């Protein structure tokens, strides 16, 4: 049980600035997901929380106690590594019980705890095996078991599922969600996969280039992204962004059509619209016309990649099956109230 707090945290390697002014409060029992493209500093931030990486500036505290100078072993935090980092010369049981071994806890206590964790994770039959005799998914479970056995104040996960195949990834994702519900522990989870972020998180922290872009619930980020980066990073398929010019009572699209948006700022340069917020419409009601370029039939949905006159490529997602073929003309309408507006810097503009 722990409240983690980062205040003005920075990380520099020599002259290279990797993280800038990170301020974040993680509440007790919260599931926080750090998400962002590769190289944006997620692992670095996680490792600073773990104590494996020095904090260049600012303060990190757990339950109000400064932790900057506390070594990892005294922070009582468990970490699951992307590479799993299982000790290759120890069998599964010893891997899982290693932290207790180091703490000098007796063999009986260790055995029962390891057995309980192994049972939870479905590893009971494998406790005598060495890591090299396990599959990727099993190794991943052992790595989680090693963390569970410790009963730590907080769990850290660094892209724990990125080495698994798609089916296993979904399964383990559910397992982690269940684990969080059962343990009710504070968890910080790093991923570059926004689906993982949206499905697991209580709150998501979006990082880009070492700077926090936005912190919020999955729905917050989906509905009111703070900037174009968040808008395009969260949500799948990716949000369409098209150039617009401010006009009287709204914005003018590239094809000359005026989209009525009351109270829009004159700084607007771009309009973002999610594929699911575009509709195929009657020619009469449509704002844009174009040609279907590629059509993907997913059964539940149909993805239409269209070339729109005066605007460029747009992606439209429609529910159910749409009988449309590449080359067919399409008429597209924007659902009212779903457009996002951005200024030159990419900052989201709220409509008054």
């Amino acid at each position, binding site marked *: 049980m722990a409240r983690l707090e980062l205040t003005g945290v920075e990380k520099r390697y020599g002259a290279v600035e990797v993280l800038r002014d990170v301020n974040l409060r993680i509440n007790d029992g919260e599931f926080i997901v750090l998400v962002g493209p590769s190289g944006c500093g997620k692992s670095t931030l996680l490792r600073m929380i773990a104590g494996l990486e020095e904090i260049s500036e600012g303060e990190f505290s757990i339950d109000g106690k400064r932790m900057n100078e506390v070594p990892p072993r005294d922070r009582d935090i468990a970490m699951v590594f992307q590479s799993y980092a299982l000790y290759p010369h120890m069998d599964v049981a010893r891997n899982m019980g290693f*932290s207790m071994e180091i703490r000098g806890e007796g063999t009986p206590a260790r055995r029962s705890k390891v057995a309980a964790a192994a049972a939870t994770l479905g590893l009971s039959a494998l406790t005598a095996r060495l890591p090299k005799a396990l599959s990727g998914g099993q190794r991943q479970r052992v790595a989680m078991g090693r963390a569970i056995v410790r009963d730590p104040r907080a769990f850290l996960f660094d892209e724990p599922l990125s080495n698994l195949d798609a089916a296993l990834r979904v399964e383990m994702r559910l397992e982690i969600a269940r684990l969080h519900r059962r343990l009710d522990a504070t968890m910080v989870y790093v991923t570059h996969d926004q689906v993982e972020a949206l499905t697991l998180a209580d709150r998501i922290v979006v990082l880009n280039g070492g700077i926090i872009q936005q912190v919020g619930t999955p729905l917050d980020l989906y509905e009111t992204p703070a900037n174009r980066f968040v808008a395009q990073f969260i949500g799948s398929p990716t949000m369409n962004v098209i150039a617009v010019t401010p006009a009287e009572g709204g914005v003018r699209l590239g094809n000359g059509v005026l989209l009525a948006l009351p109270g829009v700022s004159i700084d607007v340069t771009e309009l973002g619209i999610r594929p699911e917020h575009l509709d195929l419409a009657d020619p009469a009601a449509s704002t844009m016309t174009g040609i279907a370029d590629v059509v993907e039939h997913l059964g539940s949905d149909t993805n239409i990649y269209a070339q729109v006159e005066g605007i460029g490529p747009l992606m439209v997602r429609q529910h159910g099956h749409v009988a449309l073929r590449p080359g067919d003309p399409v008429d597209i309408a924007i659902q009212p109230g779903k457009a996002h507006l951005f200024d030159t810097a990419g900052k989201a503009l709220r409509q008054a």
Partner: protein
Amino acid sequence: MATWQRANPLMRTGKLAAIAFYLCFALFPLYWLIKIAVTPDRLIYTEGTALWPSEFTIGNFTTVIWQTDFLRFFGNSLIVSLSTAAIATLIAAGAGYAFSRFDFRGKRLVIALMLLTQMFPLLMIIAPIYRIIAAMGLLNSLSSLILVYIAFNIPFATFLMQSFFDGIPKDLEDAAMMDGCTRFQSLRKVILPLTLPGLGATLGFVFTAAWSEVLFALMLIKSNASMTFPVGLLTFVSKFSVDWGQMMAAGVLALVPSCMFFIFIQRYLVQGLTSGAVKG
């Protein structure tokens, strides 16, 4: 498919033949060594080219062991080689770990200097080394050899150890530290067990190098009491004759520690000890 099936046995035979040829080629001098060692003295020249002598004797061995200084040479060599191997490996392990894991100022310079020491032929530095050892008053002592051998073996041994440490994922240490280890504990409980093959290989390498070194042993040791084995071997060459049988018997005996050493460390040399540590 058919060609593959037909080519396969041919390829196999060819490969086996190549290996067999190489083995014969490489092991023939060894065979000759043993052959002469068990040949009675009077047959050495008369049956010089026979593949196996018509008479067999272990007389050379008993003579060498009981009637020459062989045992003393052998003991000296053992002391020198074991000390050198142990100390050099210990230092190399520390240095190799530092090179592999830490970034510190002057690291590149130190590595460059260590590489540089490997580029000079030993002959060039015999005279200065002799002067230094003489000034230290260490001439004719085993410690002089140990000192010099350690100095010469450390650079290569360090690079060897560094490459072994490089092969151990850093995540393992991080995981150990998250699990409550101090850096030293993570070294002892996680890194050391995984480095045993590397330590074994380095020990073996340094031991063998020290065991067979002649040049410095010849220069720095003049007294019979501190001669090492390779130099002692030369005492079988007298002014008027060479005692081939005894010399070869001594040579065979000299192989024993090296062989034993490698048999002993062989189980640590098996690869794949770290497999399964990270990823799939």
